[in-house]
């Protein structure tokens, strides 16, 4: 098997540093589709590459070789990949399978819980106002999804600000944004190098909803101010919740750097105060080319293995 099989494993690392800048520069709808699609495709290709490496080792186990009618002398121990590499690939593949399954179960439960709550919330309207002084608002996925807004949040915003808030949350529900964030997070679980891409998608769906809200209320500045007020109000009457233990441990490093890099809210506000992002087809094409490269490499590698096995099979019969 040629070195081409390693390229799909490297490409996510090459792509990851560009996820954040792409999220900031592209039109948010394009960025969401592109980053989600690229993350899923790259994760798929790298998983396939790991599988091929592991399979190339597995067929050299005498029992497997005899079952497949493959000649061990053709497959030989000196055929790349080396056994150590293949074993490592197998372990990584196993770990990825476990974490992906765990993630899928937890996310399924969370979504099922959200659907249940969306159904059980009182009233038949889409918007549910909650008597709570803390300023908070969120979209709850469901069939139909609901928008939950606290009285504290309504009080913090003026009339046009409320319209912007509702339009933003309705855009999340109408665009099924939780499917994008879930798909990107799934890809990052399978291939942890893609974590920056999943974070970027969390941000681009917010931008998508912001721009949609700006179209609905007809004023990007107004949406920027509504987000700013809401965030300041939320901070004023909701003391910063400590992150749950595990997350705290994982993210404390990022938190220490937090002052260096602005959080999502100021970036969203700044994006709305700046002119709308242009469509950058060159960047789009570059990412598509990268993903295509990963796909082609994975296919070549799969083809290589297949050729090797059919050669081993022919020799076995002679």
């Amino acid at each position, binding site marked *: 098997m040629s070195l081409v099989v390693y390229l799909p494993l490297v490409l996510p690392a090459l792509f990851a540093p560009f996820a954040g800048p792409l999220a900031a520069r592209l039109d948010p709808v394009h960025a969401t589709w592109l980053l989600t699609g690229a993350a899923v495709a790259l994760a798929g290709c790298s998983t396939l590459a790991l599988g091929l490496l592991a399979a190339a080792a597995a067929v050299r186990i005498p029992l497997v070789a005899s079952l497949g009618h493959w000649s061990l002398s053709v497959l030989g121990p000196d055929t790349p990949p080396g056994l150590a590499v293949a074993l490592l690939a197998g372990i990584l593949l196993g770990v990825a399978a476990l974490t992906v399954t765990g993630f899928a179960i937890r996310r399924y439960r969370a979504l099922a819980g959200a659907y249940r709550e969306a159904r059980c919330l009182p009233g038949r309207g889409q918007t549910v106002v909650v008597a709570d002084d803390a300023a908070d608002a969120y979209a709850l996925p469901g069939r139909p999804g609901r928008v939950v807004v606290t009285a504290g949040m309504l009080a913090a915003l003026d009339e046009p600000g409320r319209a912007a808030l509702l339009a933003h949350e309705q855009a999340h529900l109408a665009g099924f944004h939780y499917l994008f964030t879930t798909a990107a997070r799934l890809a990052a679980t399978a291939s942890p190098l893609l974590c920056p891409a999943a974070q970027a998608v969390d941000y681009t769906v917010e931008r998508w909803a912001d721009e949609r809200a700006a179209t609905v209320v007809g004023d990007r500045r107004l949406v920027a101010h509504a987000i700013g007020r809401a965030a*300041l109000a939320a901070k004023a009457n909701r003391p910063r919740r400590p992150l749950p233990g595990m997350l705290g441990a994982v993210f404390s490093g990022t938190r220490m750097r937090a002052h260096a890099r602005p959080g999502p809210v100021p970036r969203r506000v700044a994006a709305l105060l700046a002119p709308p992002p242009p469509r950058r087809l060159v960047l789009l094409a570059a990412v598509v080319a990268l993903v295509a490269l990963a796909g082609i490499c994975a296919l070549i590698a799969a083809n290589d293995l297949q050729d090797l096995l059919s050669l081993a099979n022919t020799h076995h019969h002679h």
Partner: protein
Amino acid sequence: MPHADPQPPRRGAGELEAAVLSVLWQAGRALSPGEVQQALTRQPGAAELSYSTVVTILSRLHAKKALERRRDGRAFRYAPVADEAGLAARRLAAMLDKEPDRQAVLSRFVADLSGGDEQLLRGLLGDGEPEGG
């Protein structure tokens, strides 16, 4: 039944209902339609609402069981129903706080701000503007 508007109106029905509910919650007592109308008009950026529009919204909310009303002279006074929605949402919040995955399926309007974010945000929005609310 709510009807689907092809073009979102400048002030959607849901939005007006939310504004009325917020007024009643802030008041903390039963209000007459006139008082609700005054409170709504006082809000910055609010368009003029006629008395009959306010009455319509209040009756609609009452029909949806979001408000309870009692007769006071010739009119009704309205107060938020105590408060199934609040209980449901508090239960929801308690549940969501426990699980990072539950948090992840919600689309929160605004993420938490760090200290640096807050300064940055105030800078972006201009001096003191956020307090104007």
